[in-house]
């Protein structure tokens, strides 16, 4: 499998209260063709910002550092015009709330065909035929009639399927799905997860999946990155990370879930994640960590490779120290 996307030392800083605050800190990951790579973490951990940064969809005056190599080209250095041919065409996005990400006064037909006409110069009837095909692919009943309807006329699950159709209509190679099922019922969520999985298998679609739901992650992603306070703290094959978490934060996230077997679930993590303005010395998780040692308060851990796993936690059971 060839890497379609390679992200190296991605750093995002935004101005806040007169100084620059780092909200994404030296993040590295790669996505191969036909692969689903996940980023998990609590709200405010920087997972959405790191994906918005891939397409330079950042707030004004934000500073972006590092490299984002997509299909051989660096998007951080790319010109605005080159980037425009990537956005929506090569890399498409699906957001959490399809009501907020769709123009309420445009018909579904217009929402679906606009970017086809921009990117490919399709004529009206060609774009329409393609839109009907896409709606069939995401299993919207009566596609022809649906093209004339407006977003509010659909249920949440249908809207999210239309959002996915709209993202995939230009046949992008990478889909960024930011909490694509968080607003949906489990029964509807299951349908969306199955749809994404079939698109991955049948069209070699690569997906970056952003979600705090480790159940969803477990169903879809083959590689899992866990983020905390703007940094990746643990990364590896989803199965290995979920079944044998090594970072105390990953463990705590898993323990906070309702139980699936007989173990007691919903053990809360004490405290709350730090605000980006907060300057925490050492490991950013140490104030909430039950395994924190005195070293953790002063030495910032580096993400270090241990066999098949990346881990930013020196007191790891294997006691392999990554920090200088």
């Amino acid at each position, binding site marked *: 499998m060839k890497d379609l996307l390679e992200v190296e030392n991605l750093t995002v800083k935004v101005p806040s209260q007169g100084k620059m605050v780092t909200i994404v800190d030296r993040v590295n990951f790669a996505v191969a063709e036909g692969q689903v790579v996940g980023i998990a973490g*609590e*709200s405010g951990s920087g997972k959405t910002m790191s994906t918005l940064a891939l397409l330079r969809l950042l707030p004004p005056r934000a500073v972006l550092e590092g490299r984002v190599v997509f299909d051989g080209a660096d998007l951080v250095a790319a010109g605005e015009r080159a980037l425009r041919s990537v956005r929506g065409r090569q890399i498409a996005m699906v957001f959490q709330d399809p009501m907020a990400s769709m123009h309420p006064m445009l018909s579904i037909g217009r929402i679906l065909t606009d970017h086809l006409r921009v990117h490919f110069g399709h004529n009206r009837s060609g774009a329409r035929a393609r839109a009907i095909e896409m709606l069939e692919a995401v299993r919207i009943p009566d596609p022809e009639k649906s093209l004339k309807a407006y977003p509010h006329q659909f*249920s*949440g*699950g*249908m809207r999210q399927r239309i959002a996915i159709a709209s993202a995939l209509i230009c046949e992008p190679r990478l889909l960024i799905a930011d909490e694509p099922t968080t607003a949906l*019922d*489990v*029964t*509807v*969520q*299951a*349908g969306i*997860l*199955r749809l994404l*999985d079939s698109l991955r298998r049948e069209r070699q679609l690569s997906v970056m999946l952003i979600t*705090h*739901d*480790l*159940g*969803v*992650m*477990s*169903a*879809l992603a*083959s590689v899992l990155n866990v983020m905390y306070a703007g940094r990746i703290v643990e990364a590896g094959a*989803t*199965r*290995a*990370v*979920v*079944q044998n978490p090594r970072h105390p934060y990953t463990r*705590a*996230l*898993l323990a*906070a*879930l*309702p*139980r*699936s077997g007989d173990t007691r*679930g*919903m*053990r*809360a*993590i004490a405290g*709350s994640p730090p605000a980006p303005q907060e300057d925490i010395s050492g490991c950013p998780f140490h104030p909430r960590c039950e395994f924190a040692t005195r070293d953790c308060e002063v030495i910032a851990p580096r993400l270090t490779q241990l066999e098949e796993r990346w881990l930013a936690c020196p007191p790891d059971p294997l006691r392999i120290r990554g920090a200088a």
Partner: protein
Amino acid sequence: MVGVSSRSTPDPGRSVSVLELEDVQVEYVRRGRIPVRAVAGASVSVTPGEIVGLVGESGCGKSTLAHAAVGLVAATGGKIRFGGIPVEPLTRRARSPHLLPLQIVFQDPFLSLNPRRRVGSQLADGLTARDSNGSNRKHVAELLEMVGLSNAAADRYPHQFSGGQRQRLAIARALAGNPSILVLDEPLSALDASAQAQIANLLVDLSQRLNIGMLLISHDLAIVREMATRISVMYLGVIVEEGPAEEVWSSPQHPYTQALIGAVPQADGLGQLPNALAGEVPDPSRPPSGCRFHPRCPHAFSVCFDRTPTIRHSSASRRVACWLYESADAETGADNPLRISIRDRVRSGPTFDGTGGTPK
């Protein structure tokens, strides 16, 4: 004994305050359009100290039922009683004082707290409603402590808190009424996994410590199983299954409950896709004939298309509304002509087509 601290031992006078909903119906009338029966006959009861979960998909009527339970919407049929006295729907007049121990916590703490008032004064409202001398800082501090917040929170505004902390404030405000029953409308769904766990633990702890009964409305069956003693499953305005939480989770009887549980993705790293339920929730203004779940039900057979199943005991502790379980307790249903006819129909063998069998 006015102070909040006096509640560490349950008040014996409160313990009779059971919330009973009996065959409740709520219909929304829309001008020029077909009325929507959001709740089409649902019965639930909550006693102090127990947590009853009410689960279902969005649009199934669970929030409407929660609002009807505290009088925020008027029921168009059935009975709602709190402590034996009917719950009157809210009007322009003050809410009846006997309803004060019946409180509600809403889904979105960003919307349910007043952004322009300090937290302390918002909490004091509830204390004043209980006792006009009750609203001093000490009692506010006690409320904050009960939900795990420091006294300093009283002087701040809601926007200065995180989502989880704000939900704590909303719970504190409900506790100010010294409730014996708390209705919780999706109290966790706006929160992150770790904040969910914190609030879930807080609620279970409050329920046990203060002997508060809770009606927990949620779309997340996994969380409800964790918190509740009993679960009611709702589909399109009716309750289709009811029983002890652990039993419903481990051996669901209604095909809808089975579908809900099968759709929960497991964080086991096995890469298994959850099972999707075919179709969409039907338009509640035009519910399907017969069993409301039949168009999406993998086990639907001809009876389901035209006869509505009623909820009945499938065992001593469990009830289910499904034709699949009708013949199981046929002995007790001898006085029910419908049931006899169904039994006869089923017995009529494989040629049974749902139209013949017994004369109508």
